[in-house]
């Protein structure tokens, strides 16, 4: 059943999503796009864009959006879609609720020990790998088109990728502003 599957999926994402919003992206992408096929790569990219431009944590945003879209794509109406959103978001928050309460009650004093530190000497570099994998998986025809299918769109896409990387990475332009520029460029050049 799709609601149960949504719950389990986002519970897993909440339980194993280390490394903040970006670290979590790789998990969300793998579970919702690659495994369950609830979203296409383009839809996932759109969610990331919308999450950047709206307030709130990206994990909550994508759980809400994905919950609705997965149910909607399965052929249900708005009301069931809203229920799907609530299911996914609740499932994402539940592990945090359990873990943080356990830590507050029992494990607070263990959180700064050498053991936890050494776990993170392995985790931290792996999260970098997760993010790299998310980037690589997003570099596909759905987001960039291909030189064969539409050379003009492919060329513009590469240029927009490079401009955004340079703009946010080097010139420190605000990502939201950069998304607006890209939307404008898309409207002018890719209409």
């Amino acid at each position: 059943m799709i609601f149960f599957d949504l719950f389990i999926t986002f519970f897993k994402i909440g339980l194993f999503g280390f490394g903040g919003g970006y670290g979590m992206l790789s998990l969300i992408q793998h579970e919702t796009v690659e495994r369950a096929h609830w979203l296409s790569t383009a839809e996932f990219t759109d969610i990331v864009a919308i999450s950047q431009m709206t307030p709130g944590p990206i994990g909550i945003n994508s759980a809400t959006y994905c919950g609705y879209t997965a149910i909607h794509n399965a052929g249900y109406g708005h009301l069931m879609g809203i229920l799907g959103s609530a299911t996914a978001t609740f499932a994402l928050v539940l592990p945090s609720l359990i873990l943080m309460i356990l830590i507050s009650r029992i494990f607070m004093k263990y959180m700064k020990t050498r053991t936890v530190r050494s776990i993170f000497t392995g985790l931290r570099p792996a999260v970098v790998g997760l993010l790299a994998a998310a980037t690589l998986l997003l570099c596909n025809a759905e987001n960039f088109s291909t030189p064969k299918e539409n050379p003009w769109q492919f060329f513009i896409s590469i240029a927009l990728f490079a401009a955004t990387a340079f703009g946010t990475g080097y010139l420190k332009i605000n990502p939201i502003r950069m998304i607006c520029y890209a939307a404008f460029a898309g409207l002018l050049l890719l209409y």
Partner: protein
Amino acid sequence: MYKSLFTTFFKIGIFTLGGGYAMIPLIEEEVVNKKQWASKEELLDLIAIAQSCPGVFAINIAIFIGYKLRKVKGAVATAFGTALPSFLIILAIAIFFAAFKENKVIAAMFRGIRPAVVALIAVPTFRMAQQAKIGWTNCWIPIVSALAIWLLGVSPIYIIIIAGLAGYLYGAYKSHEPHKPLQP
């Protein structure tokens, strides 16, 4: 009190753009300066711990504060408050976006936005690599992880579990040989 917990974190949820870490100054202003629910040192402690926990960073902080003040009910109030603004906004967008996606203007804008978003994910990869102190000795960890996920379709969850376990075992092994110098 629950209402105050809820509204404060609702405010924190609604006024933060750009994800978890952008919330820290706002949380400090509301929780430390205005409401005095925690001291600045306590909050810094909680931030450090929340960073080493899985899940949504802002939600984790909210739960810590809520639980500290009013136990489980407080934690539920703050978590709910933090999540609700994004939930409502995104739900509205999800419902309306489904109708506008076929619109030619919107479609053209998103064709421009998508490659930009990929860059927005690529850039923090390098920033995180710096923060994680990736060098010649450990650069194989992100490379192997990324290739396993990208080419072999391995679930990132397994990568997380293996990396955590390996870090733990490495730490345990090193603490048994305290005099052995670190390999360069």
